[in-house]
């Protein structure tokens, strides 16, 4: 129990750091090449303050409150539901204040700019809600969106797949970009990123994820604009070019000519064919890369 509590505290610290970072103004322009949200999992402090002992009855009361008032947006597991709510197990408002005061103050006003209405409630209920939310974060002591993932694969078979049928070695190197990757990510994060290193395991678009693909536009007069895609629809696209200039271009059917290249295309091609065994084996292999 002490061990898990220390780890839980570390998770809180991690969540605080990452969430605080995400509240800062979004970097402009977009970092080229970096998959959206790539930085979110990487924060690294393993130290943190201890947390107050958990009262199981408070957790139970908080669970009921949560189900009534919060789960619709934040999901039954508080990790950001289908309606696009914030992952509360990573929120500094939830995890950053031992007295639950901050949560209470926050709930009085909500977050109108993100369409969260006010949920004022008595202090005792706020404390119960905070206890429940902290229990979820604590349960996820392994990190990776609070998921406790077991390593069940065969590392040797994973190495074979990595260098052979999986063709991972075409783009990746265990002594280069993946050096030490087993120590860098929790297992669930690592495995999720093996499938597709885009996003942070939440619903798509959460955390302000940007497109991140590269784009080349050929205008009717032959002029070419290339850069990193910020957003694209059937009617327009926005890119940031190599000089950091933001440019929006109107689209009308096939004009102008637009070529989008996804650096993760190999993952997209692979994932519909990936078996659970191969996924587990590669995870087991990469976990060994400390």
């Amino acid at each position: 129990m002490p061990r898990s509590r220390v780890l839980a505290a570390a998770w809180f610290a991690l969540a605080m750091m990452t969430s605080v970072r995400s509240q800062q103004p979004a970097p402009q322009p977009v970092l080229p090449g970096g998959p959206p949200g790539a930085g979110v999992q990487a924060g690294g402090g393993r130290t943190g303050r201890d947390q107050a002992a958990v009262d199981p009855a408070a957790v139970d009361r908080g669970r009921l409150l949560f189900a009534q008032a919060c789960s619709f947006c934040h999901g039954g597991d508080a990790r950001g539901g289908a309606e696009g709510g914030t992952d509360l197990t990573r929120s500094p408002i939830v995890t950053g204040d031992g007295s639950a005061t901050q949560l209470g103050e926050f709930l009085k006003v909500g977050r109108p700019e993100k369409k969260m209405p006010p949920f004022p409630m008595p202090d005792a209920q706020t404390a119960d809600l905070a206890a429940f939310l902290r229990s979820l974060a604590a349960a996820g002591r392994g990190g990776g969106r609070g998921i406790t993932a077991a390593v069940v694969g065969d590392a040797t078979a994973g190495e074979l797949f990595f260098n052979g049928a999986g063709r991972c070695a075409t783009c990746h190197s265990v002594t280069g970009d993946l050096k030490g990757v087993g120590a860098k990510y929790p297992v669930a994060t690592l495995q999720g990123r093996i499938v597709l290193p885009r996003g942070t395991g939440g619903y798509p678009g959460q955390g302000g994820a940007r497109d991140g693909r590269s784009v080349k536009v050929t205008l009717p007069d032959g002029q070419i604009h290339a850069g990193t895609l910020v957003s694209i629809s059937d009617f327009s696209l926005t890119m940031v070019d190599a000089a950091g200039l933001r440019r929006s271009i109107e689209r009308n059917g096939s004009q102008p000519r637009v070529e989008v290249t996804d650096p993760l295309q190999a993952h997209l091609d692979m994932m519909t064919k990936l078996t659970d065994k191969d996924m587990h084996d590669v995870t087991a292999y990469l976990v060994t890369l400390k």
Partner: protein
Amino acid sequence: MKMCSGLMLLCLPALSLTLRGQGARDPAQVQASTGEAWPTYHGDYSGRHYSPLKQVTVANAKGLSLAWIYKTTSSAVGAITGGQSQGPTPPPAAGRGGGGGGATPGGPVIKSIPLMVNGVLYLSAPNHVYAVDALTGEQIWHYVWQGRNAIGNRGVGLYGNWLYVATPENSIVSLDAATGKERWNRQLVGPTAVNFSTSAPVIVRNHVLVGIGGDGGGSQSFLESLDPESGESQWKWLTTPAKGQPGSETWPNAEVAQKSAGAPWQPPTYDPQLNLLYVTTGQPTPTYNGKSREGANLYTCSVVALDPDTGKMAWYYQFSPHDTHDWDATQVPVLIDGTVGGQPRKLLALANRNGYYFLLDRTTGQSLTVRPFAASNSYDVGENRQLIPNPAKEGSPGGTLVFPDSDGAANYPAPSFSPDTGLFYVNATDAASVFYLPADPTDPTGFGRGSEWHTGLFTSRLVALDYRTGQVKWEHKYPQVAGFWSSTHPGVLTTAGGVLFSGDPSGDFVAYDAATGKTLWHARLGASLTNTPSTWMLNGKQYVVIAAGESLFGFYLQ
């Protein structure tokens, strides 16, 4: 009535008299809708989200322009109030920054489909009902229910001169449509239950039908029929069976069954000829953990045909037996009068969250077509066209890669069926998650300690399916990656003008040629589209209405 709409306030007394008996109480009227009004959540009882209006056509849709914008307010200032403080959240005295009729930041998001009858729009958000002049976009009245909050409300029901709305804490409130004054309210289940209500009541003859929401587990879900005048219960259909009842054999015991959600919160569809109501149900709980609930878990993840006069079930069909991926079946059961094998047939079509398109005979519940319309890897199709879940695709300690993710290939936003094209239209998402479930899940409630890591593909497409076969006739892939998931798709509307209205992940409201998928017109509305488009006529003009966040937009041909 048309001349009245410009002078709404002066006309209200007369309007209320005229409205009485002209509302949505006659099923035949709703079924054979001329498209002039939008009198019920789905537009009519069929759930097709198809309008016979044809003023806006493939040829002229590019001339659509803005008629008005209405913005919701969360301020209680000047509003009619009802309800009282109960449950965990006392009411705020007024919305933030409210007062004096000035602009109020943070009005509630509109997820409801507004009704439009006799020149007045009726729309809702949790604890709020708004009446809006359909000609000008001006608010006529605003009703606020003081109570616990939630974030979604799908709309109101209308019967004669009375409106019905469900509150987050499971009260049904009846309002005078002319004034917004409360007539009565009735709490269907107490605020301690793990339920919240989002559904739009549907009225069939003298039945106000409302399904209770909530998927946290731990309490039973139901659809209840209320007397429209008194609010008294007429009957109540429970999603999961009691001991010894049919369906109880699909559960370990009655206690487990009665604590497993299955909330039927999608507004039902209705066939007046068969006198059958089609109700779709939510997922069983614990959601990710099926170990404590071995069996098919009837009647979760199903469509059931109910007699609206008695609540008795005529038949059921289960889309996702023993679901462990949160693939509820609360999508719209679309009623199609079509032909199969040259014979006229009464059909029911549904594009399920689990990635499969289903076509059933709605007289008998017989399955006619089962075909995936999005990436799916968790089922085998049995001989009787019944899906068989692959146990290897349940969550596991080491993780299981599953298509689609829990949000699903489709979700509650309405699809559409056009009898002119014979195509069934739905916004579909190809997505996957790695599902986790500990070897010994310690928490048997709620999501059962299971979790998931959402991963790609996140490809969203507007697909047009042959309603008989489920085969893709055309599809329009949205170019944007990451940013659209199935519960936030806008719904789809088709019209006799050959136009399909929906929207893309960038917040563009788009008109397409329903036959080909060619884009005809678009307007970027500054926020994600948050409901399903609807259409109606006023003063000889066809309006098309869509919500984006707190704003409702009306478009027409000038």
